[in-house]
């Protein structure tokens, strides 16, 4: 009997409980919330790989809600202190060497963020996918004990998105396994893929994510999370320009 109750409890708790009636937009929302929490603090490292060189940097990041985040570089020394603040689609960067905060102008939004394969836009607008796309569940796959939902998201006509479609692979425990960016001729351009899944901060999350272009398989950027805490209280004062310039934590 105990097992039975347990089983029901598991069922109720399990994401599988809604698998019969999956709302794709809801699923993406859940995956985003799962990754971000209401607020979070994380320590991560980023590796930029090119055929002839590779470099890593480690950084800390704070988020609050969908639209506010602060990232600060800790290592290597020559980049330490530089950071990025994003707030409602606007973005500022701080470079300690010149002691200046620069608001990233629209002309630079599609350029690379800190030399990586992520664009500034990827960093600042990652939740836009919810509202600016039309989502359809195309397939449910089995992956061991988990179900993986394949969602095709096609941007609205006016959406500020260059992609023809994005394909998201979301596991039933809300882990975004893979995000594919397709151009308008249905050619795969770049892929963001979870390479390692770990339990961190009490949640199972994709701890290593790699972004790479299809055309250049030897060029990629890997973000790997060492530590993450969810639902902590990040004060609003943390996400200000003065805090970007003068780190208080």
């Amino acid at each position: 009997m105990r097992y039975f109750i347990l089983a029901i409890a598991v069922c109720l708790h399990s994401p599988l409980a809604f698998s019969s009636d999956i709302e794709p937009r809801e699923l993406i929302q859940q995956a985003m919330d799962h990754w971000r929490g209401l607020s979070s603090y994380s320590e991560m490292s980023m590796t930029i790989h090119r055929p002839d060189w590779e470099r890593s940097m480690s950084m800390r990041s704070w988020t609050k809600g969908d639209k506010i985040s602060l990232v600060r570089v800790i290592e290597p020394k020559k980049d330490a202190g530089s950071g990025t603040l994003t707030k409602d689609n606007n973005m500022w960067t701080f470079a300690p060497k010149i002691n200046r905060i620069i608001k990233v102008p629209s002309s630079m939004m599609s350029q690379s963020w800190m030399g990586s394969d992520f664009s500034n836009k990827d960093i600042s607008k990652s939740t836009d996918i919810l509202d600016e796309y039309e989502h359809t569940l195309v397939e449910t796959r089995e992956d061991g004990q988990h179900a993986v939902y394949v969602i095709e998201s096609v941007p609205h006509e006016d959406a500020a998105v260059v992609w023809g479609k994005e394909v998201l692979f979301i596991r039933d425990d809300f882990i975004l396994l893979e995000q594919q960016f397709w151009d308008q001729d249905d050619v795969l351009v770049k892929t963001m893929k979870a390479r390692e899944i770990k339990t961190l901060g009490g949640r199972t999350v994709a701890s290593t994510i790699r972004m790479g272009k299809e055309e250049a398989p030897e060029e990629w950027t890997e973000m790997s999370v060492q530590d993450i805490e969810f639902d902590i209280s990040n004060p609003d004062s943390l996400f200000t320009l003065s805090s970007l310039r003068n780190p208080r934590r």
Partner: protein
Amino acid sequence: MKNRLPLKAMLTLAWRNLWRNYRRTLIMLAAITVGVWAMIFMTALMRGMVDDMLLNGIRSLPGEVQIHHPQYRDDPSINNSFEEPTEKLLDALQIPEVKGWAKRVRVPAVISSERDSRGITLLGVNPTNEIQLSFDLKNIIEGRFLEDQQDRGLVIGAKLAQRLETRLGKRVVVMSQDPQNNIVDQGFRIVGIYKARLPGLEEIYVYSGLETVQKLLKLEQNISEIAITGEDYRNVQHWYPRIKEAAGEQLETVPWYKADTYLGSMLKMMDGFVLVWIVVIFLALSFGLVNTLMMAVYERIREIGLMQALGMRPGMILYQILLESFLLIVIGLCLGNMIAVSTIIPLRDGIDISAVSQGMEMMGSSSMLYPALQLNDVLLANAVVIVLGLLTSLFPAWQAASYDPIEALGKE
């Protein structure tokens, strides 16, 4: 005046003298003809080239007369926009000299496709006005031009499409800033691709509907500029002050030659250049002319002596030689003008110089050269040849007139 021969007799004499040595005269005629042809033809080509540069320049200025916010020309940002034209200005734009005018939003923006992104100038336009003003529908090589102010499509240049690795019917994203410096962006579908006379412009100008762009940039009814064209860019100074007055002090109204002083001085420089060119060709010609006349005089020393002995005054002899030279020049001019005009007319539709188009593009002119025959230039060439021609003929004529009859008759 009993010693004066009637003009008719003088003409007959001059005419016959000309054809005494017909070979020499023909060669001289050929030289004058070719010289005059070169003056007129080359001038027309140069005029055509400069006209083309000016028109292209004025078109991208963006008009013969332009109205802007006073700071716009220094800082073409969205903040330097102004409100819709007032009644007074609208009235002033009705004057007959104004052929077309258009209001535009014109801001720097970034366009991105899946593969690349580029800086551009985004133009929010009213397509009907734009066509009146300068946009040629023949330039659209694929798709269509915008249909109205609300058109949500995008018309981009062929070169830009190639750089972005995109094409007709695909979506691209345009990003810019609103007056509060917030980033605004929107997806647009490419509905048309145009080819500009200058490929450089294809990469810069991207057109969309005026209202669409105003909405994207949160500009409400504001615009960045009013561009105005008239019949002829050379006559702008006659009518532009009226527009300037109507536009008022708080807006800046400038004609093209002030907006771009380089283009403005180009026109004046060209006038000077044409004169120099004509005079240089004439100098080459004049040696031949003097030589021909000197030979003619030299051959006829005895004859001139005889005429003087018979009572012809030196002045008459001077007159006689000048008349010969005048006949020679006039025949040469007639032939030269005829040949020049008949070579320019078949080339009216342009000479394809695309083989050197890259170089020409750097100069700001396009790969088709349209010769521009101007009456003024033709008159100038003819006047220079006649006046300077007669002046140079004075020397041999004066020499002939100053012979001593006895000495001349004694020459073998």
